């Protein structure tokens, strides 16, 4: 699936690795289970590292290790499963994660703006979501009512000029 970042197709620098597969050279994405099992070896590789979390796995499970990661992948098993919206927001606003937060799995055009607001910045999107459509999705709503992880001015801030 194509990767969209900053409203454009982007090259995927990472290789997503199954739990049983041998690790290739370069940047990899592993599951939380593999990360927990092979933590020392993965750190020793000295390459960019991403961890993939399932919908029921809170990023709190990564603890201080977050600082060693450059990517967290959050899975959407079904587009109706909204847990990853909380995980992304926690990563950005509570754990101060500055790396890439990538969405994979089943999500729709109509969710892209919400996902961006909670802190996702990379999307393994279906072919039907082109960069043009992606940018359209983000421009649909000019106003937002609540603070999130994107730093957008809320309606209240706009009203008071703060």
């Amino acid at each position: 699936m194509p990767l969209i970042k900053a409203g454009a197709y982007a090259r995927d620098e990472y290789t997503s690795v199954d739990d049983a597969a041998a690790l290739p050279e370069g940047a990899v994405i592993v599951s939380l289970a593999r990360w927990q099992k092979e933590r020392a070896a993965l750190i020793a590789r000295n390459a960019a590292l991403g961890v993939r979390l399932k919908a029921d796995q809170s990023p709190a499970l990564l603890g201080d290790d977050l600082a060693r990661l450059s990517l967290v992948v959050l899975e959407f098993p079904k587009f109706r499963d909204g847990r990853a919206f909380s995980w992304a927001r926690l990563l950005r606003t509570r754990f101060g994660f500055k790396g890439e937060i990538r969405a994979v799995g089943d999500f729709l055009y109509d969710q892209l703006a919400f996902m961006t607001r909670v802190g996702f910045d990379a999307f393994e999107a279906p072919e039907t979501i082109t960069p043009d459509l992606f940018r359209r999705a983000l421009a649909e709503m000019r106003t937002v009512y609540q603070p999130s992880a994107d730093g957008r001015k809320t309606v209240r801030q706009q009203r008071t000029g703060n």
Partner: protein
Amino acid sequence: MYRYDEFDAAFVADRVAQFRFQVERRLKGELTEDQFKPFRLMNGLYLQLHAYMLRIAIPYGTLAARQLRKLAHIARKYDKGYGHFTTRTNLQFNWIKLKDVPDILAELASVEMHCLQTSGNCVRNVTADHFAGATDEEIEDPRPLAEIIRQWSSLHPEFTFLARKFKIAVGATPHDRAALKWHDLAVEIVKNEEGRVGYKVIAGGGMGRTPYLAQVMSEWVEREDILAYLEAVLRVYNQDSRRDNIHKQRLKILVNAIGPEEMRARVAREFEEIKRLGTLQLPAEELERIRAYFAPPRFETLADDMPVGDEDFEAWKKTNLHRHRAPGYAIATISLKAIGAVPGDCTAEQMEAIADLADEFSIPEIRVSHEQNLVLPHVRQRDLPAIHARLKELGLATANAGLVTDIIACPGLDYCDLANARSIPIAQKIAERFADLDRQHDIGELKIKISGCINACGHHHAGHIGILGVDKKGVEFYQLQLGGSGAEDAAIGEIMGPGFGEHEITGAVERVIEAYLKLRAPGERFLDTYRRVGMEPFKNMAYLEQLYAAH
């Protein structure tokens, strides 16, 4: 009432365009029905038995006269000339075409209305006491907070794909008219010993197949912390709720699975973290700014002087008026429960006439109650005879608010895709059986609530007498539940036993009420008699006919 500023107007306009694009893609086949569904639901659009149904949000049940006129116009132009007020204080149109929906949304936007979050697994339309701002019982008007919650929850990026729907209510009176304990989350405005105003928060209530009353989460939340606290509850729910069984995904299930103690602890931890960030603090100026929209109208200096009229007027006075905060004024309930009518239905002509009445005799504002009636919140007592006369001409002067024929009923199998049984004809038959007004007054306060399926849109769990329609091998049966309440003495009704057939249920209800009349102590309501004597005597009476038939 609240008026949109440029930002609110832009928001709703963008939302209409967004939905138009969704409908376009659906009609072109780019979105499957399965993919379209959550987005149309979030815009209040259901696919019913016969057509699309559109549910329009009436935040905290407050409606301007010009908005009611617009609803009348939509009823005429896009539907069959009537609408249905619901137990969530929304309005439903039952005969809508998908291709018209974007245009209807645009019409609604022109009067600052929308269908946003009237359905779907998101934070739903926020409800409040329908006498807010008019009753002298309240600590303060609950609607400014309800409006703040409405804005904060509108297209909330984190909480728009929750495990299930999420209903919030706000109350401010000891006598609860907003069914707070039956909500996923409710805020009660309270005063502490120092006389300061703050919020009590309860969570985990709900009807449906597993009814629960809400548990106290916090006895006291400071004003500026309330959104942070609500966000904490929502986040715990979004993170921790089950997602594997649609029937076990409401907040009430989580609260009761982990226990209220653990839920309180999780919410408290989350609350501290959110508070530390500080971005959700509600500044006093913001509350004041919103509150200014709800400032009470300037009341004339009058003395209480209730007019006396004919028998009809006197009967109406007895049930359909409520004490107002200002002397010489009253709160008038317009019953949408004429005998034989569909509870909550209102024709375009009636809507327009009610809007005219509000303009002429009140402020141009109408309230919708969760009991499916309308309210004129501020009327001069001296105008009541004229108002009553006009309502009579419109068929809207039914003197039954709070009485046995003021029945709540869901649309049931006549409209609804989910229903197992019809609700409306049962409500009509019961109302016809008890049509005699003297008899109704003799029976006194009695709340009958009817649902056509286990989802409980007709609030049967909260009925003094609750009726649940079930399907047994293709035949409609009706179970009786007694002792429920949606008020401050909230309780879950107790199931009596096997259901009654369509032709038996009215008789069974009548026998239960006859039993009450024999058993009651002087001045005792049905509910209180039931609580005193229990199910047994009612049960014996209700099944009497079947016993005769069996022998």
